């Protein structure tokens, strides 16, 4: 079937099997390998993307569910070399180690900061609890989200 959606602002009309998982569509068909897969069953958050600005697990979505929606992946967060404030603070604060969880963390953070521009550390910990990280112990990720929130408030 043909599905129509926007990916990072670009129109896409794609012919694909309706039962194709969104994570596979993004990675294999569209070469957007920034979206990771680490469990395939909704338990790790590595595959998090934004659909109409809301965080979704792309390993649990089928291509047909994208029809008419706006998808943002990690590749759509920066403008060329210029990092999104969330990405920038992840790098600055040392929140990236192996980096395999990082795209999903950034997308989950984007969703959080839209809903709550000034989360405290506990709220950040709660909001990111669906995103597993095996490297960092989370602390620097929490630091990064705190600092990104502050920066984005200042900019707003």
């Amino acid at each position, binding site marked *: 079937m043909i599905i129509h959606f926007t990916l990072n602002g670009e129109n896409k009309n794609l012919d694909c099997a309706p039962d194709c998982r969104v994570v596979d569509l993004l990675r294999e068909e569209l070469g957007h390998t920034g979206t990771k897969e680490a469990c395939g069953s909704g338990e790790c958050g590595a595959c998090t993307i934004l659909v109409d600005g809301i965080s979704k697990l792309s390993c649990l979505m089928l291509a047909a569910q994208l029809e008419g929606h706006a998808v943002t992946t*990690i590749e759509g967060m920066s403008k060329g070399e210029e990092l999104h404030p969330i990405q920038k603070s992840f790098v600055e604060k040392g929140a990236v180690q192996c980096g395999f969880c990082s795209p999903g963390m950034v997308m989950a953070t984007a969703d959080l900061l839209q809903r709550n521009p000034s989360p405290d550390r506990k709220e950040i910990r709660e909001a990111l609890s669906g995103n597993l990280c095996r490297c960092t112990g989370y602390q620097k990720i929490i630091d990064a989200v705190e600092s990104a929130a502050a920066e984005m408030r200042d900019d707003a």
Partner: protein
Amino acid sequence: MTGPLTPIGTSLKRTDGPSKIRGLEKYAADYYPANFLWADVKRSDHPHALIKGIDLSHVRGLPGVLAVLTHEDIKGANRIGVPEMDQPVLADQKVCYKGDPVVLVLAENKAVMQEALHKIEIDYEVLPAVFDPEDALAEGAPVLHENRSGKNLLIGGAIEHGNGMEAFQVCDAIVEAEFDLPYQEHAYLETEAGIACVDDEGVLEITASTQTPWRDRNELAYALGLPVDSIRVIAPYLGGGFGGKDGITVQGLLGLAALHSNGRPVKMWTSREESFLASTKRHPGRVHYRVGCKEDGTLHAVSCRIVLDTGAYASLGGPVLALAMEHAAGAYRIPHALVEGFCVYTNNPVSGAFRGFGAPQVLAGLEQIIDMLADKIRMDRLEFRLKNVVSRGDETGCGVWMSNSTGIIPCLEKVKEHPFWVQQEEWVNQAGPFKQRGVGIAAGLQGTGYGPMVADIANAKIELLSDGHFRIYSGVADMGQGNNPTNVQIAGEVLGQAADYFELLQPDTACSLPSGSSSASRTTYTFGNALKTAATILKERILTRACNMGLGIYAEDLLLSSGKVFHLTSGREIPLANIAASMSPEERISSYAYTAPVAKHPDSAGSAIRAAGFPHRVFAFACHLARVEIDALTGEVEVCDYLAVTDAGRVLNPQIYEQQVQGGAVQGMGYALWEDFRVENGEVLTRNLASYILPTSMDVPDILSLPVETVEETGPFGMKGLGEIVINLPLPAIANGVAWALGRHIFTSPLTAERILLTMEKRQAE
């Protein structure tokens, strides 16, 4: 534009950050070459069985299936592993655990793959199996590998120091206990992955998520029957490793697949379930301790019996046991010791390397025993440790000589001064209703490097490029710990360049130089040493050439800085690009081989244990403190505060240092409290991240990390390995806190809510 200089000791932002955070860094799992085929395997359904026949008739003709391969298609020895080559790429006569790969399929897509794997029929003759390592050692137990003289004993031996067991007769207090240690699954987010193809020249090229590109190449040559120089292994950034990719995972299968794919590239990427089934784990085991001291608190004797279950194949079980034994007396001076160790084959999944490498298992037991002994003689737990820990020049109870920097005393002193320790009673007494609190500490050490098992060598290579930038050829994979960015910082310091004057090539057997594995707390220590000297040699060449070019008379008058060489007295300068242009390509490349120092062999350990890497020479030390609170209704343990004081020598980059400490402490909390990997009769019961509970952001506190900066003369800029010491102590520190809260020790971990509730019930019943 030139960035600022970021000397050693400052937090240079990791150079791998931007590409990773933009989603542009390509991990092994991210390659989908044009026209690729999926490869996957049919695994054994039995823990121990003879393969009587394999029926592929329903599979071979399936549309979309390109090849179906068995051990008969393997031209080489069909054995991988190091140091013991006992694991088949594809099982031949028999299978030894539920998960052994038997048939390899190449298919156009995953749907066809599923169908093909389903339709393969394997005829087995089931053999008696053995699942408990003690049973496996017993006379008459089913034998896994018939060709071994020691039957199921992979490696065993003893360390004897002083009078061994006799010394207990003169102890005033003795404590004895047996600890049950669980499996731990690495659960790196990137499961085993890679691609392979045979290029036009006939070279088998494998890009894999691996900590060991150099070793892989040798093993693959032997297993698949290829010359070493017809194999190329590339190791991109890993999505986590922690020891689980210390050796071949999918590489053997990928290589075999690419040799039968009609020139098409092949890709493997294990599902989480398959990763849980077939990847190595931390060795589960039993550790029996007896420790005695004098009335005044002087430790006098220790005996320890360690039994580790290595599962169906050796993997790195030998060195893991040797390291466990070496660390069994911890960082204590104990004049008399007897440590016995056994690493045993069973029909369970394979255990292998995991951050800490045997040390977490023994320190889990020892550090609880030390607390119990302190209680018994009514001595303060921290003072008891302070009284007995090693200083430089001492030997540990295992006869390991502390010849190098030894900072355990300052680690303990920092904890002693900290409010978490000073105010322990107040904090415990402030527990709310239905809460029980405790404060626990643990101390320990971790060897850096391989020990005298194999030469611990890194070959660094660095090049001045024609545009005046530099390229570092990394020889050791970066699994997330940040050795690559640290390499930039080290070379930047030597060459006076800002980070943006470097590009970094990932390990690639075709262009970097053999530098060993990313493991054993050696990665930055060994490669960093090699790189520092390689960069120094290159610097001398550049300055000499600048003199040749008329910039000055003496190299001492010149300053190398970002992109140029300055003449200090005249202020004149030459761009590095001009200097590069006057150098031959060979001159612009500098390489240096560094060999890590090894200890003299003390005669306290048997030959098998020495051959497996006993003893080390350079050690990191730490003391951890955990404030824990138990919910008396649910049994759940909350770690409220956590302090990690570490001596890993000089801190090269405070941010990367903290990353290791925080991440390691949390991985250790998982080991202590939640990560319950269940295997019953050889069957893995824990198959996904829903049942294997990793710490989430909500489960853990912020970690307070305090470095003790000794200067390790042998390390680059005074550092020593940090990656492993951080995981050795969370389990005993938390267990000691829990024991305070409950009034008794629990000898089986993880300390799940269920186990805690059970203990509380038992205690009430008494």
